């Protein structure tokens, strides 16, 4: 994601986070995790999704990252029976979430842990990608 693209999205998204999570904008940093660091709950993600749709005119689908990884690998190669990610699944997830600091990943992670990895920067990138997709569609 280009610096200019990030700068175009971040201030507006920061305001959305501050409003949804009832935190001061000063507390928000690009590499902070929405759940672990900023205290987001599942209802807050819905709230942010609604505000993103309104402000940026794009839809960030629930479970988008997981869906991408499954499409790349196939269900069986992505997730083991116990709900844990396979080693290959974890590798692909790290590629998809290349903007997430590596220390946030654990060696053994469950599929249900994926939302806990999402940082402010990840969301900015998702918004930027969704905007580009929309533009491409509009341009035919």
């Amino acid at each position, binding site marked *: 994601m280009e610096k200019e693209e990030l700068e175009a999205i971040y201030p507006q998204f920061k305001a959305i986070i501050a*409003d949804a999570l009832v935190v001061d904008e000063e507390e928000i940093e690009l590499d902070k995790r929405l759940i672990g660091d900023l205290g987001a*709950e*599942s*209802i807050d993600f*819905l*709230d942010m999704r*609604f505000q993103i*749709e309104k402000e940026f005119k794009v839809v960030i689908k629930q479970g988008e990252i997981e869906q991408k990884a499954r499409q790349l690998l196939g269900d069986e190669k992505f997730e083991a029976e116990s709900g844990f990610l396979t080693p290959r699944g974890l590798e692909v997830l790290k590629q998809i979430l290349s903007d997430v600091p590596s220390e946030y990943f654990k060696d053994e992670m469950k599929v249900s842990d994926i939302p806990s990895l999402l940082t402010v920067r990840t969301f900015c990138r998702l918004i930027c990608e969704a905007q580009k997709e929309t533009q491409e569609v509009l341009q035919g």
Partner: protein
Amino acid sequence: MSFLFVDCILERDAGKRAVGVKYISLNDSFFNCSKQGAKPELSPSIVAEALGQLAAWVAMEKFHFAIRPVGGTVSDITISGSAKIGDKVFLESHIEVLDETMMVFSGKATVDGKEILSVRKALAPMLPTDLFIECKEAKKQFENIFQSDKQAESSSHGRSSFHSNQFCFYDQFTECSDEGLVGKKTLLPEAFYFADHFPKKPVFPFSLLLDCYMNAAKYYLKRHLGLSGRVSSTRIRKAKIYHFIEPKDTFVTKLISKGKKGDAYHFSFETTVEGKKVSGAEQVLFQLES
């Protein structure tokens, strides 16, 4: 006794908007009585609940009652008037967003053309109806809402008699200081509202929790600040329910006094069950009549 508050739907466009009516009769529940000799007023949170229920009915209708909105967040509730016994409250709910994951609506309630309450941007996750109530039962309740205004009015007089706002008071207040106070309440499983909210998974209604917040603020104004004037307007901002509060749960609410800004008293709230945050409201503003 019932926890369903829309007596009649006058107009509806499934998934988009609805206009309904709530008749206030002596047989209703959840009255507040602010002055001796004055007509009891329906608790404003019940008017907000009615607006939410109206939106919920048309949202459910759109999805053939397979999913329903439950709980969530509300950006702003402004209470500027009241509904008294004998009043006919017009309810108007507009759904801004509705899909398989969430419903967002805004609405207003009026009496004799005067707005008494508005709700802005209330968001609720859409969840499988079956988790809370049999789909068939929900559909039946919807069909039972009287489509005829006259029928609904006469029916409202026949409701079972029970009027009290005891449900929305804390069992105990402690730690009352300049910083605020702490309220504690244990939910009795036999509380009547659990029967409708909901039969298969009883949860404490968000609206009643907001009522608890308002009652705690009034208690604080009276007991700690010695102010007993009539509240002329109230605003609740950024209220959320993060996790359901269930029968037998004891919830603890911390009211934080944010002082007086302009002519309004500001408070914020945080509610926990066994230490886990279940709800909060960023601002509750009270303006007192001078």
